[in-house]
């Protein structure tokens, strides 16, 4: 994975010094909270319901074990012994003291980590495929391009106060595991007819109040124009994105209001101009970055055999592992969704254990997924049982990847000052209702996503089943949506009818799974059956 050179280290260290100075001025009263807020947000520091929340960036979701270990130590030292992995592949701490944050950032900098631009109206941490570099179906590792964009977008002087936040995802597989087209810019690395690698750009996607699937804006951007084209997309947005209403300020509204063709015309015009400006890094820079992402030293003779006699292990292997490009290896996902647990939470001890296992059995690498789980990207099949046993002892062996128990949920009203309803207790009740592994296996793939308000941080628009918490005359109420998807077949979920109480929504989901099981044909997933038979049979069962 990427290693900082002296320049990268200096940039992060300088940011720590700058932030320390900002906190000093705030505590001395030289900065009012109003003035300080946009500055602290650019460093991922939010003021939530009970305390400050610090969001630490995990660029394109990739971590080494030293970094992961430190994340555990920070949870112990500065928080309440746990951390929360987020839908943008980052980690958040919910109980942080303002005066501690410069020291936390200084500790992070020592392991090449930071909280730069994890919030605020700027280009956020760039997300990617959690299986990058390991998946059998990728045409190239997307992370070097994400790293090139990370450096370009860090402290970009023109784009630090955009109309609104800006999220970029880069993928390079046919299977989209990063919800790429639900980003402000989605980039898919592709090969053209001449066999050259380039970038396909989508722009104007997003969730939030007005979910949109990003339209294609350019089929192929050559690698030696990647930064210049990105800059053109951003400049048009910075100049013309709406600033009169924060709910209409995302690029998706600009693209929608201008129309895709007009946005493309403006970007191409700006691009033609910017190509005359020497702003593009040389390809040698991309090559330098790529050298950090070469395959680890796989054992070419690693055995493909796997002893599956232990039934619990077998279930976990079937559910939580994925084919690796290298024979004899698998990609293993650690579910942070135990029955009755808080989605995405891990204790300091669990974080350090995963770090140790990655060091010993996954070439020192881990990934954070947008579904709030942790991945060991490169595990030898021969080591898998050992890894599983260690996870099992630590309560980390839940075999529910992509099932109804693998719920994405935002922090909701338990933590967030924007939320209208709680998300976590609903997730806990659902995972308890569907707690048996056998039942989850029977229902199979069912992506369930919960947001505690219309800002949609829990991605409810993209859930096979989505739940949206709203405030109804002072009471928490939950609306149910069906049919969303974030994959290559991206679709937005539709609301099925009147909302429910917390218990009512759990009952409704149970009825929906019964309708699915009664109507399922062959290998159909819940989503496939829903798409085939439509909403009516579900409505009938739920409201009838």
């Amino acid at each position, binding site marked *: 994975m990427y290693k900082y050179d002296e*320049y990268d280290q200096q940039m992060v260290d300088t940011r720590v010094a700058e932030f320390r100075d900002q906190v000093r001025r705030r505590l001395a009263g030289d900065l009012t909270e109003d003035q300080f807020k946009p500055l602290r947000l650019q460093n991922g520091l939010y003021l939530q319901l009970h305390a400050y929340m610090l969001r630490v960036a995990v660029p394109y979701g990739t971590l080494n074990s030293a970094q992961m270990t430190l994340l555990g130590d920070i949870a112990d030292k500065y928080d309440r012994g746990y951390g929360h992995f987020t839908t943008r592949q980052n980690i958040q701490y919910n109980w942080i003291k303002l005066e501690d944050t410069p020291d936390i950032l200084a500790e992070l900098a020592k392991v090449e980590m930071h909280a730069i631009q994890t919030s605020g109206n700027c280009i956020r941490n760039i997300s990617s495929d959690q299986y990058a570099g390991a998946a059998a179906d990728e045409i190239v590792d997307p992370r070097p391009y994400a790293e090139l964009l990370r450096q370009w977008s860090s402290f970009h*002087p023109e784009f630090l*106060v955009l109309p609104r936040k800006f999220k970029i995802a880069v993928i390079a597989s046919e299977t989209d595991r990063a919800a790429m087209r639900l980003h402000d810019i989605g980039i898919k690395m592709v090969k053209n007819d001449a066999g050259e690698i380039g970038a396909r750009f989508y722009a104007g996607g997003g969730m939030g109040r007005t979910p949109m699937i990003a339209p294609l804006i350019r089929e192929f951007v050559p690698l030696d124009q990647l930064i210049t084209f990105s800059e053109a997309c951003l400049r048009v947005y910075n100049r013309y994105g709406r600033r009169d209403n924060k709910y209409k300020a995302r690029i998706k509204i600009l693209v929608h209001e201008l129309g895709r063709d007009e946005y493309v015309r403006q970007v191409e015009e700006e691009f033609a101009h910017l190509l005359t*400006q020497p702003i593009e*890094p040389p390809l040698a820079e991309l090559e330098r970055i790529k050298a950090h992402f070469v395959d680890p030293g796989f054992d070419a003779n690693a055995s493909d055999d796997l002893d599956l006699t232990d039934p619990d292990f077998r279930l976990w292997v079937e559910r939580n592992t994925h084919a690796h490009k290298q024979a004899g290896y698998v990609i293993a996902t650690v579910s942070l969704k135990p029955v009755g647990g808080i989605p995405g939470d891990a204790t300091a001890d669990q974080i350090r254990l995963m770090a140790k296992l990655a060091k010993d059995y996954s070439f020192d690498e881990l990934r954070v997924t947008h579904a709030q789980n942790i991945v060991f990207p490169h595990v030898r099949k021969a080591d898998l049982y050992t890894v599983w046993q260690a996870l099992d002892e630590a309560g980390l062996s839940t075999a529910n990847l992509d099932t109804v128990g693998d719920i994405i949920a935002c922090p909701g009203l338990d933590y967030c000052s924007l939320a209208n309803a709680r998300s976590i207790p609903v997730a806990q009740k659902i995972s308890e209702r569907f707690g048996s592994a056998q039942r989850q296996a029977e229902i199979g793939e069912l992506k369930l996503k919960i947001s505690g308000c219309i800002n949609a941080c829990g991605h409810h628009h993209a859930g096979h089943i989505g739940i949206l918490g709203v405030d109804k005359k002072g009471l928490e109420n939950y609306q149910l949506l069906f049919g969303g998807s974030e994959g290559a077949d991206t679709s937005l979920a539709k609301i099925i009818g009147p909302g429910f109480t917390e218990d009512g929504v759990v009952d409704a989901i149970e009825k929906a799974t019964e309708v699915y099981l009664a109507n399922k044909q062959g290998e159909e997933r819940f989503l496939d059956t829903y798409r085939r038979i439509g909403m009516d049979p579900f409505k009938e069962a739920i409201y009838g």
Partner: protein
Amino acid sequence: MVDVQFRFRDDETVNDPAVTVDSFSEQSNATAVRIEPGDDARDLLPYLDRLSLVEVSFPAWTDGRGYSSARILREAGYRGEMRAVGDLVIDMLHHLRRCGFDAFAPEKALNEEDAQSAFDRWENVYQATVVDGRPAIWAKRHPA
């Protein structure tokens, strides 16, 4: 008019009255213009030769359109004074400099010492903006 607190030019401060972008093209003797956030800086491109002062207004520092306006004019070859006016905060001074501003007239005077350390804080930069003449980190990594 607010005072210029920081200036990075050797020539004399321009004090010509600035006119709006809308009226600039009609006033053949005007040499100073004021760009508001909603104005299109490219409307000025035919007149760069007679401009000696461009004021870019920041009614709120969190409105970032002025950064693009400044950079666009510098990319087009404007060499005169580019003055940021309005709600300027210490922490953005460095970035304003990088987009081509070389004079700063904050509506409330900034702490001199804090501002100076903000201007000087970043020894290296990740991007080439062309307009500030600083080599990007990638250029230092790959000297020609």
